[in-house]
């Protein structure tokens, strides 16, 4: 059978190269998946299908307690950031004041400065004011970059917003608080949610800042994973990777769908 000559399939070299690069991006993920179901974990040969690594991982109390530490940190840091990050974005969009550029610059710093430098300075600060390191010092440190990301995503939405919406609400008798909660907040909600999801994933992923601010009391999931990878290749880590990747892939899809929908709505 021959392809109809009317629509000749022209394949550019960019298309071929892109397919190759897609392969490059997904190769490590496929490899982890392959190993996680493989009975012989220390060779690249297929040794038969097994779920034992998943069973082992779900019964591993250290992994589970690290997961619960990570989730506690991420939920607290993102929760605080959702509130104060959004307030900051609204405040920066609304008011002009002396030193505004300095304030704005500081709010962008966590997006720019390398994690290692933030980790070091937070550790030094906590040592100087003699605060004992714990789970809550990780929350405080994570809130810094989480609030930056939330504020960043929310301000890009604020730029595209009709500035007269709130004025109209206040002309109709709404108090400033009412117009913020009833008018502005619903408009900003998609941006707040996608900013929070981004911050959540970054908080769950952070190794450096957490390990500098954790002390002996707390171990987050990345810290636990790091200490295991350092020692040797551990097959149950493969199962953990697959579970985590499916979970964060789901979060990513939710975030992208929200962003895509709100953009579509805006364009209509």
């Amino acid at each position, binding site marked *: 059978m021959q392809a109809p000559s009317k629509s000749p399939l022209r394949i550019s070299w*960019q*298309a071929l190269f*892109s397919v190759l690069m*897609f392969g*490059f*991006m997904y*190769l*490590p993920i496929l*490899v982890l998946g392959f*190993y996680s179901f493989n009975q012989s974990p220390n*060779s*690249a040969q297929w040794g038969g299908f097994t779920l034992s690594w998943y069973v082992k991982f779900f019964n591993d109390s250290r992994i589970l307690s690290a997961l619960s530490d990570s989730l506690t940190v991420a939920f607290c840091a993102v929760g605080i950031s959702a509130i104060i*990050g959004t*307030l*900051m974005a*609204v*405040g*920066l969009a*609304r*008011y*002009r004041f002396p*030193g*505004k*550029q*300095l*304030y704005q610059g*500081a*709010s962008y*710093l966590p997006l*720019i*400065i*390398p*994690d*290692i*430098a933030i980790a*070091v300075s*937070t*550790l*030094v600060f906590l*040592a100087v004011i003699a605060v004992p390191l714990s789970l809550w010092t990780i929350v405080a*440190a994570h809130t*810094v970059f989480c*609030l930056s990301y939330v*504020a960043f995503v929310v301000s890009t939405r604020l730029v595209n917003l009709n500035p007269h919406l709130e004025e109209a609400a206040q002309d109709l008798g709404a108090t400033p608080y009412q117009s913020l909660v009833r008018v502005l907040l619903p408009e900003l909600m998609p941006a707040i949610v996608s900013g929070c999801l981004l911050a959540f994933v970054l908080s769950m*992923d952070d*190794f*450096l800042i957490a*390990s*500098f601010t954790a002390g002996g009391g707390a171990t987050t999931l*990345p810290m636990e*994973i790091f200490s295991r*990878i350092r020692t040797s*290749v551990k097959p149950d*880590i493969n199962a953990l*990777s697959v579970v*985590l990747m499916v979970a*964060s*892939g789901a979060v*990513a899809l939710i975030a*992208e769908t929200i962003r895509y929908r709100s953009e579509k709505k805006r364009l209509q």
Partner: protein
Amino acid sequence: MSTKVPSESRPIAPTPQWLQALLLLVPAGVWLALLLVIPTLLIFELSLVPNIKPGDLVNPSGLGNYWRIFQSDVLNVIGRSLLFATGTTLLCLLMGFPVAYWIALLSPKRWRNLLLLAFVLPLWTSSLLRSYAWISILRPTGVLNTLLTSLGLPTLDLLNRSPAVFIGMTYSLLPYMVLILYASLEKLDRRFLEAAADLGATPPQAFWKVTVPQTLPGIAAGSLLVFITGLGDFINPELLGGTSSMTAARLIYNQFLGATQNWGFGSALSMVLILAVSLAIALLIKYGDKNASSL
């Protein structure tokens, strides 16, 4: 600074709303000041203290920690960090441009959003586990060497050496590059390309004279992002590079959580890293402005 514009100190809203402004801006401001600005100033102070260990009194006494950076072993480490960051930037540009070009200009229009999303999806997974996956691929009995052996080819010893670091860093940062280049290529005015073709330009000529100049801001922004992220990368050099791939970020880590505890020297190195990143951004802003005015 805002003092240049006198009208800036007046709120936009007609009624005095200083209380509302305070309520909105103070919580995050205090948080940022306490846990970001003051700590950064503190490590600057600490960087002036030689041989400080936890518990010692802070007593700034000179630039010894900064002179230490100019010793050849530390300069080697900084040079290696710059090499990893620069090499990764070039690799990401070379590999990312065709992908972004294909998604933005050549692929079917309805697939574009989906393709871009699919390409950057691995970014959302744990960066530690992505590096760990490369260990599984590159180690002596890993996926790559098993494949090479079965094809009758000689095995490659890449893990714990710099090639593995380049692979891991390029893998981590390529999606950022594609994302930024895509945004730039999507806005490309195709009438210029058509005009160039009408005027007899060959495709390579049109590419270098039309596409590249128009997407230069995107190229610069993507390169900067990859460069500064690569410069501060800890995980890939640490997990894939072995002992021979010491970088600035790893050296800083060792001054605080490693065997060699020297907080002053670690702070000085952190200040240098922050300075390098700021310098790169300043260069982009200057270069970007020039570029904008020449268009």
